[in-house]
């Protein structure tokens, strides 16, 4: 009498693994293509003496293998390698980003839960929340760091505040959207069970909001890293990637590959943050396949 189910759960796992392997392969191919294009452009550019849009020479376009080997060379004669330094700078920046992420995420989430339950608060506060985002926080970064610094706040905390500011808006807005997403039928069902507001929140609204929350977290993860790096630059915080960028930029003409190497580390940091959220999403969300990106 039972009708055949549309999918069997067991098969999906091996299909997922195959898809993952294909993805990794694609990434490697992509990187290889990029490497090839870079070197090709450099070679053509130097041979033809291209000067527009920018002059192609060893300062503007170091070889990719030079950028990579720069990691293995010491920063100062006889000292630790660049990789050693980059690792510590990356951790420092990552710490700022993570603190900001958690702080902004918590505030955004809490705010969303509050607003989901009160139409009055929603109408009152939402405009301000939207307006708060029109302030280009990255533009305000220098003053936040200097200002809080004069109050005795450590620079990295100010940077975390900037990262938190960038996080709280996407999280608040998307979580709110998710909390309000259940359709009237689901709410009627809850009413038929005489379920109180708390039960409706924990059993219906929160689980329903998770896909939306993860969308926001993906945006926020990236924004936090960006905020942390940029936040470090005006105050030239020496311990992080932002400071390293400013320093290496000063000596660009003598050692361009170091700036590029640092940029690669920034890119990797951003990707790692993003990947963590994506993996977390896969693990936490058990939804219909079409819900994933």
């Amino acid at each position: 009498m039972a009708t055949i189910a549309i999918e069997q759960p067991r098969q999906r796992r091996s299909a997922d693994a195959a898809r993952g392997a294909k993805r990794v392969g694609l990434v490697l191919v992509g990187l290889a293509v990029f490497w090839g294009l870079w070197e090709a452009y450099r070679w053509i550019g130097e041979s033809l003496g291209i000067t527009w849009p920018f002059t192609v020479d060893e300062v503007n376009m170091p070889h990719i293998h030079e950028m990579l080997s720069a990691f293995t060379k010491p920063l100062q004669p006889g000292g630790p390698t660049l990789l050693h330094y980059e690792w510590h700078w990356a951790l420092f920046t990552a710490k700022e980003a993570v603190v900001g992420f958690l702080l902004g995420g918590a505030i955004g989430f809490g705010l969303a839960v509050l607003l989901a339950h009160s139409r009055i608060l929603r109408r009152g506060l939402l405009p301000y929340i939207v307006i708060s985002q029109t302030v280009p926080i990255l533009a305000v970064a220098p003053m936040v760091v200097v200002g809080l610094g004069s109050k005795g706040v450590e620079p990295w905390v100010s940077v975390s505040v900037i990262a938190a500011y960038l996080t709280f808006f996407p999280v608040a807005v998307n979580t709110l959207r998710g909390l309000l997403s259940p359709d009237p039928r689901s709410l009627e069902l809850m009413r038929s069970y005489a379920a109180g507001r708390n039960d409706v929140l924990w059993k219906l609204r929160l689980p329903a909001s998770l896909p939306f929350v993860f969308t926001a977290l993906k945006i926020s993860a990236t924004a936090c890293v960006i905020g942390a790096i940029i936040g470090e630059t005006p105050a030239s915080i020496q311990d992080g990637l932002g400071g390293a960028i400013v320093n290496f930029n000063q000596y660009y003409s003598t050692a361009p590959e170091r700036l590029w190497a640092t940029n690669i580390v920034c890119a990797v940091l951003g990707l790692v943050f993003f990947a963590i959220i994506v993996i977390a999403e896969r693990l936490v969300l058990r939804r219909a396949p079409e819900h994933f990106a």
Partner: protein
Amino acid sequence: MLGILAWQGLVAAFHVQEFLLPKPTVIARTFWDERGMLWDAGIYTFKEALGGFALGSGLGIIVALLFAAYAPLGTAFMPFAVAANAIPIIAFAPIMNDWFGLLNPFSKMAIAAVLCFFPVLITTLRGLTSVDPRAIELMRSYAANRRTVFRRVRIPASLPHMFAGLKIASVLSMIGAIVGEYFGGPTTALGVTILNASAYTNFPVAWAGIVLASAFGILFYSAVALAERLTTSWDPSRRDFRTE
């Protein structure tokens, strides 16, 4: 309005030090005193943002159209675009300055362009490829060829998504231009003005500059939103949600 009054009150009440958060009246007065310099700087930077927006968004749309027309290319590239969006592209601003010259506005335009490219590409491509298959089947039943289907179904359907991307890009382009200038630029630029003012603890000027930057950002965003409303008034999926 209420917010500005609250700001004035709070600053006075807590004796917040002048350099942290000047009173709105102080900012307004500074704005008036320095309006010539500030406005010129604002326009200079806005031109960079606009140029970058046009370049980046234009390229993003073109590439999206390409990828939508040749599906395998699109599905292969999409993960890269999403990943590239996760890279702190702004960290490449110093390199742009080195390539194109610190004082050359194109260096900031390039940053803004790269910032705009990926969001516009991703959203537009998503819009072009998420058409209801039945709408396409209908066109096929009219013996419409691929190009006609593309023109009459996919492109109109993709407009809401594209505009979502353009709105993001409008905000990003302004931020990209200003932050790019933080890494170096001519003193006629708004970002440099703000940075220098901060460095010399001339916070009223710095805040005035920020207010101006915000104003340009809001203006730009509103212009895109207006264009969207004019061209997609038919779209039933636009909800009453102000941030959209």
